[in-house]
Structure formats: structure tokens, C-alpha cells
């Protein structure tokens, strides 16, 4: 028996118990909805049984009783003795709750016997069929025979059976199931001898009322040639205390001496039902995973050190071999650590259903008590998210669901009156979007009551009457997120108590998530919560402030801009920046974190110091005329954080802060950059609060917030009614520009007074500063929470230019020739447009100034979407058997070689590359590593040249290598040496052609599936388009390899495998060829033709891409399987 004292055991038990309870909640409700669901009955029975079985080990008697009671009920459901009805279900749910209660007490180390289960069990018993199950629940362990004297039981004359030997077998009193023991013994004996007679008889042993014989003795009379030892051995199994073989002679002599006597007293062996368990896998505490992740992060960083050594070797003469060795080993190391990182990351993910399922019960109970009828619909509940995040989200989600039930969904009467289905509908949706998970709570209730909200806001002095008069819809929506705001007039039993939406919002934001509210009065409300996939990874913008680098979570950023000096001004002693029509208060990071403050030792005893500023200029041209500004959201208002430079955008592994740093307000954590330096993560809200504190010390007389423009003060510290939080157009029509450009240095050190003095400088503010600024290109605008780095791009860019170039068919021909390799046919044609990834400023620039783009025409041929010739059309026909099978197993990957950069300015670039090299090795279906950075800092001309057919050799090389890599990957994945490469062909595609191609696909009448793989950081993508049939055959091949039975339905896992392999084959080899670090992102499955089409069209219209269409064929078993790959690489600045 396991002691309850054994903490680890108990914890393990509880983990499993809780998992089972969550399941029970869901399953019991499911059963209620569908009472004839035999499968669910069976499952619940099993689970109840498991609980009982495991509880027995901990000797938790009342838990065993409850488990047994539930088991009995479900046994009767199974046997059809009783029917599923609300009453029984409610009682069963109560049992389940009581089990939960016991579990809770156990977890707290308290006495579990205090939970009274007697009443419940009585109640359960009343449901049970008259003649069954009413026996008291079976906690009792078998308590077989109290008095067992092994040698007792004298033989009598009746024991003599001519021609037989008597085997006397004594079963241990410890045996809880003597009947079965007897059966086992009998079976063993029967293998070596013929049993003529036995006592108890076979029938007796089979009987349910089997009573154990006197002295726990079994007697077998057997005919045999076997030796006594053999006989004895056969009978002597575990829990047999003794076996004696009595010879025929002995028996005979006894019979002759004595008269038969004695009778059998009978004793009962307990017999109750019991069964087994259910659950799986090894449990690992999340903390342990955290530690692992941390270590892996360090490993990745440590590895970059090797890359440096490697470079040293490469650049020094006479170390060629050593260099190669080091390079190869480093490669392995990097790859392995990346794999581990990925794995650790993945092990933290759990399906959202863990939380969603809780609501089934919740809603059922709610319906019962409130009289509202509610149907719960869940979508995407298998979407996975970091365990920690989902745990943190339980409360906020519960609150939101409650809100929907309380305030959203109306009573059936009300609903009928308004012509709605009396049954309200609550829809919980989870979906993944890049590195984010969207959780949507949607109801079809009455929506928000705007009038009531505004009224409340005015009553609570959140807004003034005059503001209320002109309040907009958006502003109203924001109001409900104000602290303490609640339209709830009364608090009932079911509803949350005084927890406002602001708390929900804060919880979401603490997780680096966002929350958006949509409502249609009368029709329903929808709340969309966007959460990062994991807390361990932060998508952040790295900035420089003086000599320090910081990172700012992308989730907090509304936009980033470079703003001309003239737009910085001071209003009533407040520093402001003018952005479009708004004046936004400024927070200066260098004032919040003076350099000396951070000159403390970090974990590595290093500070993230910048030796040489020019190092950081990267691709961003920095002038003194502009300052980089990051606009963040602060309780619905905008605040601008002023920094010295944007460095790049990156995904960082978050490290826990040492104690020393933990106390720094405004810092939420730290990460380590590839060069080993520590970088602090800014807590945006903290920083703004800090700023306010500092200001209020300095300008106590100025009043709350920043005055005109944006209101910085969070409502909770507002003393008197203040303005609506919405940033309004500035009241000032005058805004100054400094007489002479203010340099960054002096601006950052400028005092408020000095700043103010700038006011006089100029009066005329241009509407859109960026539009007349030649350096507008430096503006950087990052979409809030956009992690995939995709950037919408203007559609109608230089179409003239395009047309002009299209007619030039030379590129096509060139490429066509290029790819006639071991492959049958190759062709490329193309379209090129001008789009920069990641940054919107380029887009803007293009909108306004198309000319600069045209300056690089060499890279920018734009073959038009001309109708394809017949030959190409026939190729489409062949694509009917599209499929891809390609593989790049991580172990096969090669790390692109670091490029030699002799330019001093490039050393940072080098560093980045190292980091990228690392991430490049990461198992491709994740982009969680240190990978994202500002693509605009890289030179993409090589890629462009290749895609445009200007670099035949590299194009050829690339496809050849990609194909080779893919085939190697496939072979290593499948172990099938007989898989061969078929043909590969590539075509450059225009948007029109893709559409046309798609039309052709439609003709196929076959269901298709697409896997979409982003190419990072280019915001390019790879589409792998499979017909369902071919997808299945790929799937089956992999199952066959794994020696598993092929599933009936298409299993996406193998497809994802293949997609990753193929995706990384293409991206890694591209990197190899061009030295431009690209990598595949997270693959997304798009399930049917319509969706594929929609997604494709979306991408095509949103962004202009160079499109390369690759058909890649792999053959096995004489079956040909084709990969239809659409590579879309956005136009990149050359």
C-alpha cells in the first residue's frame, strides 16, 4: 500500500485524478445529452473504476466508495438495467464533485475522511436496480479466511480415490481472490496431470458465490506419470503457502484405518468488482520544463561562441582541417540543441479543451439554476497552448463566459419575443495564428447596452456628460474595460463578484495578450483574446537607448515610427509627439533607466553594452532629423516611448531575472542575445507608471496625466472626472519645430523646459510628416501583435513598370534551360513586385514614391501574367497527381556557412547571422528560436536574382540541392532506399497564373489539402498542395514505415512531417546558396479546396510576391507522388 505520506505518489495520483475529473465532467454531460452513448458509458465506467483502483492504493476509503458507487451506476447503465436521466446524472455529478473535494483535501494534506460520502452513496443506491449493486461498496479488501492452518484438515477415508494421487494445495490467506487462485492452480496442474476429481469442484469455483473450502485447502486427485516434484511445482504458484503430494498408498492406508468424517465449514472470500486504470504518459512538472528550457536557451547561446571560434579558425591559415572539424561538430551541437529547445517548447503545450471542457458543466449548472437555455458549441478545442498560459486564463475565461450568460444571453421568453431561438448559443473558439492563439467567446445574446454603459460611466465619473454626448462606439467599448466598471446591478450566486472586465484585460495583458470586443446590439457579443503560444518566448523589438539595449514586447506595441524632430513639442510642460492628428505623450526610456542604474551585474556579470554605435545602424539609416518612437497602448490611450534606435525584431527566450533585477520596476524579465549579452525586457505599463511617478514628483502642480492629447493616467488613480481616454485631435493647431535639428543626444538630455522652448520654433505642421520626408523609409511601423511579420502591401504598385517588363520573356527561357537537370523539365517564369517584408514604411514609400523602386530594375523584372502556353497547361494536367513527399530530417540539415564579412559595419550583421544560423537548424515546424529580426537589414538581392532567373547557376543549384536534401530527408524518415527523385520543375508564376492554375485545379474534382509554411523572416510562404488521395498515400507510406496500421482517416501528422522536411529543404538550401538566413515557420493545414483557395487568394492579394512554382516528384513502389509547391517570396528590397 502506498502511504498517503508519500508526497510524490500523492501528487502523481492527484494529477491523474484531476485529469479524470475533468474528463468525467465533460463525459457525464455528454452522456446526458446523448443517453444512449454506450461508448461514453463504458468510458465513464472505466474512469470511475480507475479512480477506485488507484484510491485503493492510498487507502482512501471514501474515495473508493464513491468510485464504486459511480461504477455501479454505470454498470447498470451498461447492462440497461437503469436509464440515464437528469436525476441520476445530477447525483453522479455530485459524486464527482465529492471526489474532487476529497482530492482537494488530499492535496492540502488534510483529512479526507471528513468528506461525508454516506448520504451520496445512499442516494446512488436508490437508483440502482433492486437486486444488484446495493451491497455496500467494496472498500474491503478481501479478507479471506481468518483461520487457516496449513496442516489442518486431517485426511479421511473419503480422500482415497483409487488410481489417483492427491495434491493438497493451501492457498495463502493473503489471497484476495482465492477462487481465481484455485483456478490458476487447477490450470497449472492440468498441464502436467489429468485431474480426476477436485475439491472444490470446477462448478463451485465458477460460481459467483464461491465459498472457500476449509483451511483454504484445495484438493486435486490426479492421474499422472509426473514426479511429485513436477506436480508440486505446477501447483506451487505465488500465494500458495504449501503443496503436498499424497501418494495413492498413503491415501489407501488412511481409508483403511479410518472412517470418513468431517464436513466443510465454509468461509467467504470477498468478491467485489474492480477494474483498472486509465491515463498515460510520464508527468513532468512545468517548473522542470522551465528549467530545461532555460538551460537549452543557454546551450543555444553557448553554441554561438563556437561559431566565433570557428570563424577565427577559418580566417587563420593552416587550420583548414581543424576548422572543418569544428564547423561540423558545431553544426551538430547547434542542431541538437535547437531540436531540444523545440521539444521542450512543445512539451509545454496542452490542448485548450482542458479549459473549454470545464464550461460544459458550468453551463449545465447555470442553465438549471437560471432557467436560461444555453447551447455550448466549441470549435478548435484541440488547439494547443502553453500550460501556464491556459492555467492563467481559466479565471478570466470563466468570467467572460459568466458575463455572456448573465448579461448576454436572454431568458427564453425574451429571446422568443425578439424572434430568436429560445436556446441561446455560446460559442468557444480556439485557433492558432502563427505564434498566437486566438480564443473567442461569442454569444448570440443581446449585445452590449450602450446607453447603460455610458450612463454608468458618467455616474462613476469615468467620463463627463459632455464627453458622453459625443462618445463613439469604440469609446464605449473601451469603457467596459475600465477598472471597477460594471453594469451589474446585483450580484447573484452564479455570477462573478465584482471582478470587472479590467481585471480580465489585465490578466490577458500580463500574458502578453490582447483582448478585443465586438458587439452588435441585439445580436450578440464576441470577445477575441489573442494569446502568445508560449510565455517562454517573447516576440520583441530590440531598441537601443544610450548604450543599452532593451526589448519591448511586440504585443504592447501599437506602431513604431520615426518622427521628424519638428513634430516633437512640449505642451504645458509635457513632452509630446505629434503623430498624424494626435498628440501623444512621450516617455523617455533613458530617464526611466539611467545608464548607471543598469550598470549592475547581470547574471553573467555583463551589461549589454554597445561598444560602437555604428555597429547597430544595420540597414536602418539614422539621421538626426528624426527620432524613433514606439507607440504603445496604455489603458486605451497611446503613449510614445522614445528610444535612440530600433535594432531589430526578434524572438527571445525569456530568462528569469536574478534577484537583483527583479526589483527593478518597469522591467519584466531578461533575455540573452546571441552574443551572450543580457538584454532587459521592458514592462511597458510599469515604465509608464514609473514615468508618471517621476513626473508627479517634478510637476506636482500640473495635475494628472499629461494634459491635452492623450490621457496617460490610468483610471484607478484618477481623483476627479477626467476626459475620455480616447486620443483626440490635438487642440493646438500650432506645433513647433526646432529652429535647427535637434540631435538625438541633445534631445534625450533635453529637459522639459528646453523642450518647451522648441514650441516657438515653427508653427506649420504638415499633415503627414512622413509623406514629405525623404527618409520616410526609415519609419517603421509594425503591426500590433503581428508575429508572422507579414505586411500588407499596396496592390497597385508601379503596374506600368510591371507591364513594361513582362514582355521580356528572356528570364523564362533562361530558367527553362537551367533546370533540365536529372529532372525532366524545368521552367520558371515570374512576377516581381516591390515589397519589403516587415515594414510598412516601405509600402508607404512606394505608395508615394514609386520611383526609388524603379531604380533597381535589374532585379525586378515583372513578367506579366500572360496566358500560359499549351505546354504549361498540360503540366497542370499532370498535377492531378499532386503530392509531395520530401523530407528534411533535422539530423540531415546542414548549417549554412557563415559568410565572411570584411566590412566592419557588418559585425552586427555577423552576429545576427550567427543567431540565424542557429535558428536555421531548429526543427522546422517552429519559429520559436532566436530567429526573427528585421529583414530590412539584410541584403536580399541574391534571392531576388535567383527568383528572377538572373542567376541561373544558383537557381539550378538551389533546386538541385533542395531536391537532394528532400530526397535524403524522405529516405531517412521512411528508411526506404527505393524512393527516388522524379522530376522537378520550376516555373516562375504571376499572380494571374496562380489563379488560373487554381481554376485548373478546380476541374480536378478532387478534394485538396494545402499546407502552408511561412518562410521567415521574409513573410514569404510555401504552399504544398496535395490531393487528398495523394496525401493519404504519403500518410500511409509513413505509417507503413513505422509499422503501424494505417489509419482510416487522413492523419495530418505525417503530412506535417513531410511538409517540414520539404519546407526546410527549400529554405535551408536557399540559405546555403544565398547566405541569407531564411527558415520555415509553423505549418498550417488548410483543409479543403475552398479554404485553400481563400487562403491563397488572401495571400496573393494582400501581398505581392515573386512566385516560384515547383513541382517535385518522388517515386516509390512505382507509384509516383508529386509535390506541388508554390513558393511565394515577397519582393524584397535589393
Amino acid at each position: 500500500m502506498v502511504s498517503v505520506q508519500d508526497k510524490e505518489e500523492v501528487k502523481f495520483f492527484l494529477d491523474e485524478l484531476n485529469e479524470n475529473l475533468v474528463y468525467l465532467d465533460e463525459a457525464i454531460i455528454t452522456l446526458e445529452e446523448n443517453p444512449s452513448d454506450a461508448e461514453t458509458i463504458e468510458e465513464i465506467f472505466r474512469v470511475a473504476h480507475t479512480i477506485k483502483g488507484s484510491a485503493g492504493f492510498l487507502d482512501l476509503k471514501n474515495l473508493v466508495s464513491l468510485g464504486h458507487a459511480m461504477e455501479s451506476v454505470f454498470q447498470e447503465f451498461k447492462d440497461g438495467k437503469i436509464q440515464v436521466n437528469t436525476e441520476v446524472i445530477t447525483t453522479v455529478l455530485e459524486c464527482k464533485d465529492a471526489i474532487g473535494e476529497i482530492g482537494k483535501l488530499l492535496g492540502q494534506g488534510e483529512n479526507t475522511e471528513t468528506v461525508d460520502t454516506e448520504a451520496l452513496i445512499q442516494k446512488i443506491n436508490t437508483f440502482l436496480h433492486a437486486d444488484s449493486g446495493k451491497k455496500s461498496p467494496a472498500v474491503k479488501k478481501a479478507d479471506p479466511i481468518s483461520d487457516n492452518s496449513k496442516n489442518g484438515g486431517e485426511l479421511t477415508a473419503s480422500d482415497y480415490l483409487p488410481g489417483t494421487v492427491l495434491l493438497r494445495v493451501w492457498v495463502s490467506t493473503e489471497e484476495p481472490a482465492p477462487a481465481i487462485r484455485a483456478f490458476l492452480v487447477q490450470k497449472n496442474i492440468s498441464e502436467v496431470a489429468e485431474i480426476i476429481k477436485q475439491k472444490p469442484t470446477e462448478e463451485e469455483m465458477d460460481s459467483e458465490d464461491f465459498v472457500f473450502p476449509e483451511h483454504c485447502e484445495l484438493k486435486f486427485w490426479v492421474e499422472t506419470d509426473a514426479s511429485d516434484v513436477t506436480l508440486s511445482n505446477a501447483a506451487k504458484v505465488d500465494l500458495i503457502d504449501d503443496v503436498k503430494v499424497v501418494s495413492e498408498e498413503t491415501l489407501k492406508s488412511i481409508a483403511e484405518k479410518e472412517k470418513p468424517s468431517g464436513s466443510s465449514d465454509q468461509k467467504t472470500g470477498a468478491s467485489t468488482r474492480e477494474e483498472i486504470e486509465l491515463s498515460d504518459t510520464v508527468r513532468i512538472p512545468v517548473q522542470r520544463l522551465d528549467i530545461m528550457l532555460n538551460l537549452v536557451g543557454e546551450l543555444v547561446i553557448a553554441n554561438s561562441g563556437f561559431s566565433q571560434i570557428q570563424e577565427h579558425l577559418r580566417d587563420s591559415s593552416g587550420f583548414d582541417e581543424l576548422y572543418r572539424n569544428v564547423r561540423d561538430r558545431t553544426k551538430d551541437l547547434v542542431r541538437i540543441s535547437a531540436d531540444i529547445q523545440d521539444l521542450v517548447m512543445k512539451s509545454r503545450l496542452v490542448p485548450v479543451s482542458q479549459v473549454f471542457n470545464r464550461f460544459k458543466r458550468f453551463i449545465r449548472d447555470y442553465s438549471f439554476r437560471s432557467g436560461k437555455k444555453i447551447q455550448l458549441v466549441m470549435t478548435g478545442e484541440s488547439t494547443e497552448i502553453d500550460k501556464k498560459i491556459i492555467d492563467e486564463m481559466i479565471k478570466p475565461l470563466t468570467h467572460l463566459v459568466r458575463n455572456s450568460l448573465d448579461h448576454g444571453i436572454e431568458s427564453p421568453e425574451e429571446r422568443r419575443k425578439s424572434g430568436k431561438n429560445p436556446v441561446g448559443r455560446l460559442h468557444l473558439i480556439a485557433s492558432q495564428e502563427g505564434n498566437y492563439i486566438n480564443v473567442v467567446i461569442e454569444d448570440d445574446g443581446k449585445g452590449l447596452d450602450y446607453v447603460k454603459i455610458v450612463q454608468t460611466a458618467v455616474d462613476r465619473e469615468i467620463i463627463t456628460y459632455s464627453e458622453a454626448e459625443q462618445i463613439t462606439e469604440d469609446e464605449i467599448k473601451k469603457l467596459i474595460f475600465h477598472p471597477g466598471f460594471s453594469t451589474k446591478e446585483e450580484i447573484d450566486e452564479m455570477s462573478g463578484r465584482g471582478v470587472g472586465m479590467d481585471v480580465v484585460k489585465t490578466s490577458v495583458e500580463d500574458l502578453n495578450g490582447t483582448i478585443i470586443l465586438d458587439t452588435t446590439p441585439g445580436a450578440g457579443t464576441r470577445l477575441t483574446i489573442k494569446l502568445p503560444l508560449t510565455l517562454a518566448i517573447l516576440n520583441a523589438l530590440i531598441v537601443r537607448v544610450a548604450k543599452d539595449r532593451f526589448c519591448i514586447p511586440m504585443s504592447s506595441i501599437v506602431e513604431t515610427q520615426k518622427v521628424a524632430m519638428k513634430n516633437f513639442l512640449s505642451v504645458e510642460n509635457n513632452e509630446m509627439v505629434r503623430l498624424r492628428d494626435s498628440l501623444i505623450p512621450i516617455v523617455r526610456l533613458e530617464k526611466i533607466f539611467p545608464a548607471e542604474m543598469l550598470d549592475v551585474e547581470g547574471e553573467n556579470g555583463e551589461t549589454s553594452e554597445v561598444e560602437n554605435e555604428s555597429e547597430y545602424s544595420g540597414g536602418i539609416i539614422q539621421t538626426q532629423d528624426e527620432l524613433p518612437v514606439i507607440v504603445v497602448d496604455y489603458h486605451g490611450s497611446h503613449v510614445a516611448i522614445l528610444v535612440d534606435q530600433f535594432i531589430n525584431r526578434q524572438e527571445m527566450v525569456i530568462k528569469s531575472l536574478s534577484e537583483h533585477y527583479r526589483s527593478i520596476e518597469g522591467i519584466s524579465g531578461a533575455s540573452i542575445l546571441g552574443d551572450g549579452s543580457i538584454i532587459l525586457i521592458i514592462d511597458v505599463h510599469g515604465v509608464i507608471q514609473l514615468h508618471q511617478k517621476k513626473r508627479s514628483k517634478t510637476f506636482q502642480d500640473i495635475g494628472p496625466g499629461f494634459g491635452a492629447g492623450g490621457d496617460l493616467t490610468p483610471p484607478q488613480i484618477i481623483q476627479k472626472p477626467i476626459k475620455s481616454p480616447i486620443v483626440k485631435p490635438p487642440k493646438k493647431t500650432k506645433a513647433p519645430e526646432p529652429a535647427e535639428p535637434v540631435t538625438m543626444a541633445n534631445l534625450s538630455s533635453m529637459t522639459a523646459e528646453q523642450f518647451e522652448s522648441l514650441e516657438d520654433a515653427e508653427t506649420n505642421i504638415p499633415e503627414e510628416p512622413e509623406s514629405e520626408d525623404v527618409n520616410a523609409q526609415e519609419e517603421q511601423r509594425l503591426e500590433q501583435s503581428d508575429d508572422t511579420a507579414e505586411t500588407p502591401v499596396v496592390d497597385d504598385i508601379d503596374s506600368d513598370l510591371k507591364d513594361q517588363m513582362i514582355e521580356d520573356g528572356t528570364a523564362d527561357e533562361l530558367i527553362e534551360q537551367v533546370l533540365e537537370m536529372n529532372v525532366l523539365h524545368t521552367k520558371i517564369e515570374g512576377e516581381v513586385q516591390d515589397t519589403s517584408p516587415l515594414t510598412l514604411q516601405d509600402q508607404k514609400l512606394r505608395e508615394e514614391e514609386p520611383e526609388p523602386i524603379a531604380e533597381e530594375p535589374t532585379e525586378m523584372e515583372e513578367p506579366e501574367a500572360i496566358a500560359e502556353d499549351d505546354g504549361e497547361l498540360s503540366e497542370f494536367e499532370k498535377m492531378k497527381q499532386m503530392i509531395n513527399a520530401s523530407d528534411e530530417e533535422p539530423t540531415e540539415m546542414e548549417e549554412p556557412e557563415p559568410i565572411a564579412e570584411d566590412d566592419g559595419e557588418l559585425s552586427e550583421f555577423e552576429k545576427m547571422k550567427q543567431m540565424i544560423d542557429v535558428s536555421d537548424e531548429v526543427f522546422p515546424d517552429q519559429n520559436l528560436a532566436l530567429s526573427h529580426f528585421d529583414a530590412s537589414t539584410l541584403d536580399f538581392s541574391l534571392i531576388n536574382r535567383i527568383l528572377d532567373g538572373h542567376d541561373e547557376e544558383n537557381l539550378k543549384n538551389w533546386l538541385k540541392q533542395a531536391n537532394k536534401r528532400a530526397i535524403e530527408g524522405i529516405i531517412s524518415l521512411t528508411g526506404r532506399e527505393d524512393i527516388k527523385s522524379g522530376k522537378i520543375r520550376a516555373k516562375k508564376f504571376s499572380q494571374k497564373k496562380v489563379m488560373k492554375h487554381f481554376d485548373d485545379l478546380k476541374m480536378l474534382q478532387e478534394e485538396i489539402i494545402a499546407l502552408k509554411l511561412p518562410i521567415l523572416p521574409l513573410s514569404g510562404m510555401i504552399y504544398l498542395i496535395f490531393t487528398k488521395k495523394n496525401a493519404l498515400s504519403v500518410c500511409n507510406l509513413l505509417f507503413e514505415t513505422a509499422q503501424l496500421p494505417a489509419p482510416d482517416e487522413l492523419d495530418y501528422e505525417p503530412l506535417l512531417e513531410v511538409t517540414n522536411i520539404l519546407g526546410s529543404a527549400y529554405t535551408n538550401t536557399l540559405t546555403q546558396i544565398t547566405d541569407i538566413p531564411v527558415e520555415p515557420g509553423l505549418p498550417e493545414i488548410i483543409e479543403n479546396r475552398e479554404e485553400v483557395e481563400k487562403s491563397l487568394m488572401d495571400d496573393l492579394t494582400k501581398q505581392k510576391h515573386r512566385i516560384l512554382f515547383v513541382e517535385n516528384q518522388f517515386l516509390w513502389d512505382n507509384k509516383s507522388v508529386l509535390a506541388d509547391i508554390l513558393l511565394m517570396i515577397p519582393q524584397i528590397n535589393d
Partner: protein
Amino acid sequence: MASAKVEGTKVLIVDDSGYMRQVIRKYLEPKGFVIIGEAQDGWEAIQLFDQLRPDVVTMDISMKKMGGIEATKKIKAIDSKAKVIMVSALGEARFIKEAIKAGANDFIIKPFAEERLVGSITNVVGK
């Protein structure tokens, strides 16, 4: 009965409860048994048995996919000398008997004490 060498006896644990597997492992490892594998259903059990050839298998009865009886039959078909111990609960007498018919060498009733498990394995392996 020969007193078996416990040391190094290779055990395959088959149980759909992680908790149960943990318990069994915890009981056995300190005694010198080597847990060479864990399976959570009968199907996995067969695969692992074939692959690992344990000296003894502890086998749960009711599991998803494939139950313990079916798995026992299959294992016995792979190796008629395979040692299988059913680990089960009271009330499953019918199933245990079926398992015994299928060739199970012993059975243990849950909940069981450490000595029970060790005793049973020792006994079965010693034969």
C-alpha cells in the same frame, strides 16, 4: 520452487494508468528488477514485447485499443514461454480466468502490496 535471481529480471509494465505504472515501477526498481518498457495498451504491449523480450510482463486487463487478455494471447503466440502476470482488480474474476486460460502465469489483485508483486514475479520467473 527455485529461488529466482531477481537481479536484472527484465519487466515490461503494461497498464493504461500512468499512476499504476509508476506504482509498479516504484515497487520493482529498488529490488533490482529492470523495467525495460512501459506500454499503455495491449497493442503497444505486443510491439514492445516483441522488441524487448522481457522476462516477465505485468499486464493490466482493461485498456483502450487492446485489452490485456487479447494482448496476453498474442504475446503467448509470439513466445509460448512468455511470462505474463495479470494485474487486475477484484470483480474481474471472469476476465482473469479468461486470461489464465489464455496463458497468463499468475495474477495480482489490486490494490496489492509490494511483496505481492515481487513475490509473484519471483515465483513466475523462477519456474
